[in-house]
């Protein structure tokens, strides 16, 4: 859910201008790059099975540099949180709750995130288990209902704007898959640590297949020009589908489920951020940080004043963040190899988990 929950709402707007009709293939290429990142992160997790990201960095590079790397990770998570929550809030505000102030929707969003973070990663994971299947069912249903409205010939020519734009689109899409590095902050809580790599790879693969399907159907229904024009392509797809004359205007049901998925993703990112901050500051408990960090997150999510600004920031984020997500595990792995570091240490969320 971390991979697709917020991004898929507007991913097509970013991928289609780059790759044209082949945007859905670029999402799959992004998934392949994401699998590489998941593999690297899995190797890191196998090397330091009892460490959070800050712990790993401190073990490899020593405390000062490790804390600095931890802070960059917190900054990355904060941007994911800010942009993700802004995107979800905008989707609800523009399409449904036009008279509700967005700051109010954002506040409710953060209240729920705070509650989830307070309960801890186990609660988030268990609720995600329930919602993941519901979200997947909703997407399968949406896909099935979209088939009669879709025009598959709109996916031609198959390579879209050409090979170079396709690879460029793949790199943009990879930034969504790369968000899986957030898991490094809490992967130590996995019961079966040997399966970390496989679990992350499965998550990335499923997430990117969902994103590719959503993009492909968007192009089939709205065309390349249409998809670049609409604000939230997936939402527009949901508005167009129906079953006979008795299941129409059901997009609010879809959005309610997707909103829940986004909430859980952002709660996980929020949790990753505050436990990392606590690790950097050497705090025994991350909970005192929840409220201040939630205020920071709300403020961050309100920085883009307009939809245009939000998509500009999002465009910049997907352009560059993939390189950070690749560099982080690569640097830690190379450092660990050079220094021969392995295992040990204890961080704040280990203490919390106990």
């Amino acid at each position, binding site marked *: 859910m971390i991979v697709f929950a917020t991004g898929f709402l507007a991913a097509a707007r970013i991928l289609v201008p780059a790759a044209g009709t082949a945007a859905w293939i670029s999402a799959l290429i992004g998934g392949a790059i994401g699998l590489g990142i998941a593999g690297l992160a899995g190797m890191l997790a196998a090397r330091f099975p009892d460490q959070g990201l800050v712990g790993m960095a401190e073990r490899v590079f020593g405390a000062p540099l490790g804390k600095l790397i931890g802070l960059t990770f917190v900054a990355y998570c904060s941007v994911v949180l800010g942009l993700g929550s802004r995107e979800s809030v905008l989707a609800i505000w523009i399409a449904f709750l036009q008279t*509700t102030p967005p700051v109010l929707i954002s506040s409710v969003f953060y209240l729920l995130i705070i509650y989830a973070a307070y309960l801890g990663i186990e609660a988030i994971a268990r609720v995600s288990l329930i919602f993941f299947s519901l979200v997947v069912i909703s997407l399968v249903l949406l896909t099935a209902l979209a088939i009669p409205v879709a025009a598959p010939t709109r996916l031609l020519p198959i390579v879209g704007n050409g090979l170079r734009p396709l690879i460029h689109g793949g790199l943009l899409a990879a930034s969504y898959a790369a968000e899986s590095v957030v898991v490094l902050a809490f992967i130590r809580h996995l019961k079966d640590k040997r399966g970390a790599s496989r679990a992350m790879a499965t998550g990335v693969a499923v997430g990117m297949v969902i994103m590719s399907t959503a993009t492909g159907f968007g192009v089939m229904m709205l065309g390349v020009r249409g998809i670049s024009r609409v604000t939230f392509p997936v939402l527009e797809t949901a508005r167009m589908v129906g079953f006979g004359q008795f299941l129409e205007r059901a997009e609010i049901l879809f959005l309610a489920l997707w909103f829940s998925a986004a909430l859980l993703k952002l709660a996980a990112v929020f949790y990753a951020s505050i436990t990392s901050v606590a690790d950097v500051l050497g705090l025994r408990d991350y909970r005192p940080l929840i409220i201040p960090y939630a205020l920071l997150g709300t403020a961050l999510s309100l920085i883009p004043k307009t939809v245009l600004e939000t998509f500009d920031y999002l465009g910049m984020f997907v352009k560059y963040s993939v390189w950070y997500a690749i560099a982080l595990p690569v640097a830690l792995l190379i450092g660990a190899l050079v220094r021969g570091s392995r295992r040990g240490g204890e961080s704040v969320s280990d203490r919390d988990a106990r």
Partner: protein
Amino acid sequence: MSVTGMHARTQPSAAWAGQRQRRTVVVLVCLLAAASITGCRDAREIESVGFVLGLGIDETADGRIEVWAQVALPSAKPTEGEKQESWRVRSVGDTVWDAIRQLNGKSTKVLFRAHVRALVFGERFARGGVARALDALARDNQFRYKSWVFVTSDPVGDVLGTQTKQSSSAALFLDDVMRNTARSLTAPRSRFLDLLTSIEQPGDQPLLARVRLVEAEDGGGQPEGAGGGQEAGSKELRVEGSAALCGDKMVGWLDAEDTAMALMVCNRLEAYSFIMPMPGDEGGSIGFDMIRSHADTLFPEGIHTPRAAGQVTDVVIRVTGTVDIREVLSSEQLMSVRSLERLEAGISRHLEAGVRRLIDAAQNRLGCDVLGIGECVRRRLPAKVWEEDMAPTWHEQFTTMRIVPDIRFEVGKRGMTMQSPKPID
């Protein structure tokens, strides 16, 4: 009571109080969210909402925009005989949005556009460019892209005001026609979404269904499907033929047969019925149902290369398909292989003549690619070549290219009887 016992009782009661306090907080938060997020403070009852079923847009003689809305009137007694079921309102403005916003001032109900079934453009407005309406409607979070789009040469207000027996309003009647009679309809099933996507593609120009007001036929003679169902003696609605658009501007009408040929060439014809003279010397006529057709657009070799811009000069439209015999009024009963072959050749010639007429109309009268040939070129070329080299001049290229129809149809089923019942002389 011992101290230990008191301590044991105090601890659970403190925990219980804490739990209760937490629950109270959760309930309060939920109530606060429910009250503030759902917008219940300004909730509207269903009676105060005007459900817009049909929207009509036209241009006045002095160039202003007039908009009609056909609004359903929800009532506690829907079956009440004298109860008016829908209401029509008109407004005039400088732009489409200006006119739409003025509609709100004329209605005692809050106009809700999520249920618009039919969007009817007047001919004058369509010829001036429908893009003037698309922006306002595409931005609207209520309006649905699934709404049917029509063009009419009659007054839009009269079209939306037509009383029908089959449906409670003209908009619902049009919606029913488009949904339920697709297999007998000689009009494109044009939705708002199709219009949005096709006006931007020079190689796939939109055809919008035409709706007309015609004199109602006598009660007993009401045809089923697209045409009938209105009160005898008054005007009735007929959905037949199409309006051809070049970009967003209407450039002409296509009659029912031309429209069917255009849909067949674009692989969008669901079914088509036609009657033609029996080939050969026997005389009489024969009726068919076209149950399957498939069109391929064939280009010269090398079209896939980026140098294709000047190469699309000759195109072959090959259509293959099957027809079922539905009626034979001739002494020729088609009982030999030779007679069937002659019939198949006759059908192919008949349809080929129809396609030739369409090609002539598209190239000379309309001057735009309603055949979807450009769309076939676009699919074969690198996107950049199409967008930069071909799309800007496609209309000119289309009008000068040589398009050759190659139609091959075969006869499928001939019904439950091999020969016509023959009375004794």
